[in-house]
């Protein structure tokens, strides 16, 4: 495994998106695995190393099974029981992997918060929206229930929910999809966390509402200076919010670069493929580029993309390429890139 380990100096100070902002999160060599059937271990995240600066948005892009959700659950300390984690997660100078359950509980919701894909199922159906928001404040800011509820109404107003006093008394099913996601965001930002983990926050929404939610997230980021780890399968959505983008494939980072660089000069064949397969309003094409094969199934030996890669050769099937910085702040894990 050591071959593939990107040494810590690779992820150095040099590629923070906004150099004047100090580092908030540093993930080094993070691996997550689960005991599979018949004693075999299945590794869902392998040797992940990345950073997020304060106030920065990191976009995480990948298809199903690439490990993007497990990564975010790992930094939230919410991995399902049975998960084996190695590597380190450093948040604001604290080592999260050494956290006790009690430390995790005072960390989650205050320092780092999460927004999920499905706002309907992510909210407790039998609890008023206002109460669900107030709960966080009662826990972390030691507010009284009444004061917390008042704050919840203000928070609902800050995410532009009309008549917030009335909405705070509503149950989740009484809100529309977009409003539910707004309420989720209000809940996540209640204690002004330093990091917001957003796991496909707009996937369940219509395009027009998606645009509203993206606007809202950017606006709040500006107000609060919250860093965001924005996870999505949709490259275009990520391109509209992220400072830097990390492309994952089959549990690994294949490319990691500032957003403009990634789109103007994608280096990894997988990233190139992803961008070229997208039909775009701006450029009609007769035939779309396709990445052959399918996601999932048995992992090939060597580079995990080698069985679908147009450039794959014998060397790719023998060893896993490490993530290297090939241009300033532009990292890629491919033998074919110089």
């Amino acid at each position, binding site marked *: 495994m050591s071959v593939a380990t990107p040494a810590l100096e690779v992820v150095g100070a040099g590629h923070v998106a906004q150099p004047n902002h100090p580092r908030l999160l540093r993930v080094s060599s993070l691996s997550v695995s689960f005991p599979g059937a018949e004693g075999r271990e299945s590794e869902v995240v392998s040797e992940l190393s990345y950073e997020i600066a304060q106030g920065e948005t990191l976009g995480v892009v990948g*298809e*199903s099974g690439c490990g993007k959700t497990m990564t975010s659950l790992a930094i939230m300390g919410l991995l399902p029981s049975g998960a084996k984690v190695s590597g380190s997660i450093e948040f604001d100078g604290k080592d999260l992997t050494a956290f006790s359950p009690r430390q995790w509980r005072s960390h989650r919701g205050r320092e780092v918060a999460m927004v999920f894909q499905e706002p309907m199922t992510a909210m407790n159906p039998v609890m008023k929206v206002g109460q669900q928001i107030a709960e966080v404040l009662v826990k972390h800011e030691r507010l009284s229930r009444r004061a917390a509820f008042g704050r919840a109404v203000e928070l609902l107003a800050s995410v532009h929910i009309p008549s917030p006093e009335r909405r705070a008394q509503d149950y989740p099913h009484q809100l*529309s*999809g*977009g*409003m539910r996601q707004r309420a989720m965001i209000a809940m996540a930002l209640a204690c002004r966390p330093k990091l917001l983990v957003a796991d496909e926050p707009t996937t369940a929404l*219509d*395009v*027009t*509402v*998606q*645009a*509203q939610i*993206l*606007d*809202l997230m*950017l*606006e709040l980021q500006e107000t609060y200076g919250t860093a965001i780890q924005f996870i999505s*399968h*949709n*490259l*275009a*959505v990520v*391109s*509209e*919010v992220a400072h830097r983008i990390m492309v994952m494939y089959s549990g690994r980072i294949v490319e990691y670069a500032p*957003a*403009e660089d990634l*789109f*103007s000069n994608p280096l990894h064949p997988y990233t190139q*493929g*992803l*961008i070229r*397969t*997208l*039909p*775009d*309003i*701006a450029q*009609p*094409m*007769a*035939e*779309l*580029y*396709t*990445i*052959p094969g*399918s*996601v*999932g*199934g048995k992992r090939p030996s060597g580079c995990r993309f080698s069985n*679908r890669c147009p450039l794959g050769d014998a060397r790719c099937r023998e060893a896993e390429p490490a993530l290297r910085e090939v241009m300033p702040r532009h990292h890629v894990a491919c033998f074919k890139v110089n």
Partner: protein
Amino acid sequence: MNALVEVDNLNLHFPIDGGFFKEKLTLRALTDVSFSVEEDETLAIVGESGSGKTTLGYAISGLLSPTSGRIKFGAGLGGHSQESPVQLVFQDPFSALDPRMMVGDIVAEPLRLQGVSRAERLQQADDVLEQVGLPAESARRYPHEFSGGQRQRIAIARALIAKPKLIVADEPLSALDVSIQSQILNLLNKIKRDRTISYLFISHDLGVVHHLADRVIVLYLGRIMEIASRQDLFATPSHPYTQALLESVPRIGRGRRKPGQALKGEIPTPLSPPPGCVFHTRCPRAQEDCRHHVPELLPAPGRPEQLSACHFKD
């Protein structure tokens, strides 16, 4: 071009059964929808969830019967003859295939229902499977052995085997991984080149629609907002809703969003659509008139082929 299907003033309302003592509610899924599908064309239907896209697809394939209005098939095509002029391809490739049937039997089902002998229809199934890019040996396997993209190919093969004139494809890509979508999109285009067939392509993804549609219908809350050729719709959208929709599509390379451009609010419930123009609650151009009068679907200024239902269209 000849019209393959003509939809004339179609209304589809579902009574919502609220129990014996409740007020009866009506879900107005489609209201006064008229258009035609030409032979050998790809007609896309776009709209947000709740706009009635799927209901329209089901109505045309005969799964739902209209409350009023007519769906007429072109010469020689009955609604439900042995010919099965319409076939469906669905969004979810997992629930689209019967898990207890072998792929060959799944693909051959339309022929089975036409009374074709087993040997004959399995032979044809092998041929069609090859046309959609699957080896003939797939016929003797079960659906769970295939990936999402492969299953969607099987579903397309089942639609093709009956030699339909029209395939209604209801969001056939949205359940697939990004890298698989383009494979299926290319397959649909290849089929189109090889035979005379029309697609009614239901989608919320404007990028995909732009890639394969000849004409586009924009639905909002069960009503047609705009019908136009692809070029016109994308180059000079006439209806404010179409414009907003195009603006909302995230685009690679546009860079970080500038907040404040998004359309306000959300699509209202079809249980009580707003009076007048159904879009007036969210429309940046809405005037008093829009609250009272339903705009007719009429040509945009100077573009006779581009119809738009707006009092203040471009």
